[in-house]
């Protein structure tokens, strides 16, 4: 709701400023508002800076293409399609501010390049006008999202950490008490993934979180370590109980001691130091190495948690992180964007359709945004249909109601509900609804052609709407046909990432550390989880196997003090076996 109101306000302010300064085509400012609208806010200055850089690069590239191939439209559109594909690839592959720049870069090339190529004499003028309008949209959105109720991602993150801490303590007590802990374990792992995702976004929002990024990473990794160690311990205890009574008795004593200590720690009466002392004493009662590993992981976790809670700035020992953004996935996204532009422009050239340029622009814009949303085939068909139907209300608003109004206030009164509805749909948690809202917003902004002196042209509007439907339809069809995002594809992708990560871990000269391996695997797991249904038995099994892979890799890293030793080779073999098991399950 707040997001919708913010987007609407941004759109109206952008239009008002554009009208006041008599900009050439204010509708691009509105369109930009839809493109850059995001639910999270924060660090708006940095984000907008990169977006504006992207816009400038895009405009420069567009002018370059116009200078090189203005006479040869096939070459021009080919170069344009490749550029849009490249930018889409970049926006998917990069994982920081650069991603924001890439999105705007591809978008600007399309909306500057095509009109400029059609009117070469005014190319520079068109480029500056579009850059002004796009920058206006960016700045207004950034200002509004920064000033009005900035969303508190960091508060959400702190809450998630606090929840995880309590659950972990419960989990440890359950493991020590030899009760069933499967439910808690699953909950903890998804919570770790949630924290990791929140962290990745909050780093851009909150300076404090960014400074304490390392502490949070250590916390998350220590959390997973405890879960992993508990799993190993549980298996070993099961085995021991069958073999010998005497060892089991020692372990039971140790566990009982540990339970008292952990209970006090959970209640907050003792800190990490006292926990360490208590667990050390408990560990002395048994020689079981798995138990000692588990206690060590728990102490490390308690220290990491204290480091996070106490707001102590962590030691400068920087944790190197990796991202699991799959190059293949990003490449397919780029290919789809290129194909969308190629298909639409081919149709434009063959059919000599006067509004083909609009369709080509919108195809580029729609695919640029679709990169962030996955979806299925039936939804795409329905969305294209509904998108076509959205033309009717747009037509009524723009051609029937708007000619009756006078002044910006009346104009705003008419336009606000339409923008608000689109933004409300965009604020939805469901991807399909988001997509619908976004596309309707695009349609509305591009058919409206809002100007200071409105020119009402019903035929033009219908043609633009057709172009928009065509562009969206093409984007959808490509999304469904070219390397669609199915659960099988997600499993293959996970397998690819896991295989690569494990190969690097097991290599003679390993290049990746614990933190990098774990971030890669956790992200891959999260991407996998997004495609699995928790209610299906085999999907749960697949996820379980994936988590086992994470544990196997972690064990290899921990033991690889002397690379190439028998222990490491054995563990690498075991990890490979896990990989094979995952492949079978998938």
């Amino acid at each position, binding site marked *: 709701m707040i997001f919708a109101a913010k987007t609407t306000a941004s759109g109206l302010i952008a239009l008002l400023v554009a009208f006041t300064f008599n900009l050439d085509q204010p509708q691009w400012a509105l369109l930009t508002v839809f493109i850059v609208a995001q639910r999270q806010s924060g660090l708006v200055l940095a984000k907008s800076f990169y977006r504006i850089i992207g816009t400038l690069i895009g405009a420069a590239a567009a002018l370059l293409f116009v200078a090189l191939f203005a006479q040869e439209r096939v070459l021009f559109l080919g170069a344009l399609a490749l550029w849009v594909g490249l930018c889409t690839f970049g926006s998917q592959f990069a994982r920081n501010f650069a991603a924001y720049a890439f999105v705007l870069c591809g978008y600007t090339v399309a909306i500057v390049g095509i009109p400029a190529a059609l009117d070469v004499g005014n190319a520079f003028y068109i480029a500056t006008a579009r850059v002004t309008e796009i920058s206006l949209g960016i700045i207004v959105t950034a*200002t509004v999202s920064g*000033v009005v109720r900035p969303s508190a991602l960091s508060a959400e993150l702190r809450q998630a950490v606090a929840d995880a801490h309590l659950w972990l303590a419960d989990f440890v007590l359950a493991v020590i008490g030899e009760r069933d802990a499967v439910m808690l374990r699953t909950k903890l792992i998804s919570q770790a993934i949630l924290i990791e995702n929140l962290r990745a976004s909050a780093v851009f929002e909150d300076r404090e979180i960014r400074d304490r990024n390392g502490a949070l990473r250590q916390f998350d990794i220590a959390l997973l370590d405890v879960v992993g160690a508990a799993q190993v311990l549980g298996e070993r205890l099961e085995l021991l109980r069958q073999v010998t009574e005497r060892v089991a008795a020692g372990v039971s004593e140790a566990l009982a001691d540990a339970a008292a200590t952990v209970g006090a720690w959970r209640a907050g009466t003792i800190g990490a130091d006292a926990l360490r002392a208590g667990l050390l004493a408990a560990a002395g009662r048994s020689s079981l190495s798995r138990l000692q590993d588990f206690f060590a992981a728990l102490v490390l976790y308690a220290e990491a948690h204290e480091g996070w809670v106490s707001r102590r700035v962590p030691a400068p020992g920087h944790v190197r992180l990796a991202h699991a953004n799959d190059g293949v996935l990003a490449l397919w996204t780029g290919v789809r964007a290129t194909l969308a532009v190629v298909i639409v422009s081919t149709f434009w050239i063959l059919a000599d359709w006067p509004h083909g340029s609009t369709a080509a622009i919108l195809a580029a814009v729609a695919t640029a945004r679709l990169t962030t949303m996955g979806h299925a085939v039936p939804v795409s068909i329905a969305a294209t249909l509904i998108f076509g139907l959205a033309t009717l209300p747009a037509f009524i608003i723009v051609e029937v109601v708007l000619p009756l109004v006078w002044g910006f206030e009346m104009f705003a009164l008419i336009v606000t509900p339409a923008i608000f509805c689109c933004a409300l749909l965009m604020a939805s948690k469901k991807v399909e609804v988001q997509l619908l809202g976004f596309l309707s917003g695009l349609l509305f902004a591009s058919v409206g052609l809002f100007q200071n002196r409105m020119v009402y042209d019903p035929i033009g509007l219908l043609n633009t709407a057709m172009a928009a439907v065509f562009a969206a339809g093409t984007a959808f069809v490509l999304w469904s046909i070219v390397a669609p995002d199915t659960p099988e594809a997600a499993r293959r992708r996970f397998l690819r990432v896991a295989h690569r990560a494990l190969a690097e871990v097991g290599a003679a000269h390993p290049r990746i550390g614990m933190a990098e391996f774990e971030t890669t695997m956790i992200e891959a797991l999260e991407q996998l989880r997004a495609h699995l249904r928790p209610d299906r038995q085999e999907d749960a099994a697949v996820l379980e196997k994936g988590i086992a892979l994470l544990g196997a890799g972690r064990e290899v890293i921990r033991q690889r003090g002397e690379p190439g030793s028998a222990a490491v080779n054995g563990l690498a073999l075991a990890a490979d076996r896990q990989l094979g098991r995952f492949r079978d399950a998938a």
Partner: protein
Amino acid sequence: MLREIGLFGALVPSLLFYFLASIALFLVIDRLASPFGLYRLVWHPPLVRLALFVCLFAGLVLFTHP
């Protein structure tokens, strides 16, 4: 009335230069204000920052334009 300025043969609105200059000025003041805890004294820091920027931008234009 603000005039356009020729930059390598292209006419650029002088407002753009004012805008860039006020961004630079704003960043300097912002950097200075954060360690002094100025933003902890106000109710809505982002609003104050926006207002500060608008004041700088408008002031720069009003007091220095020819």
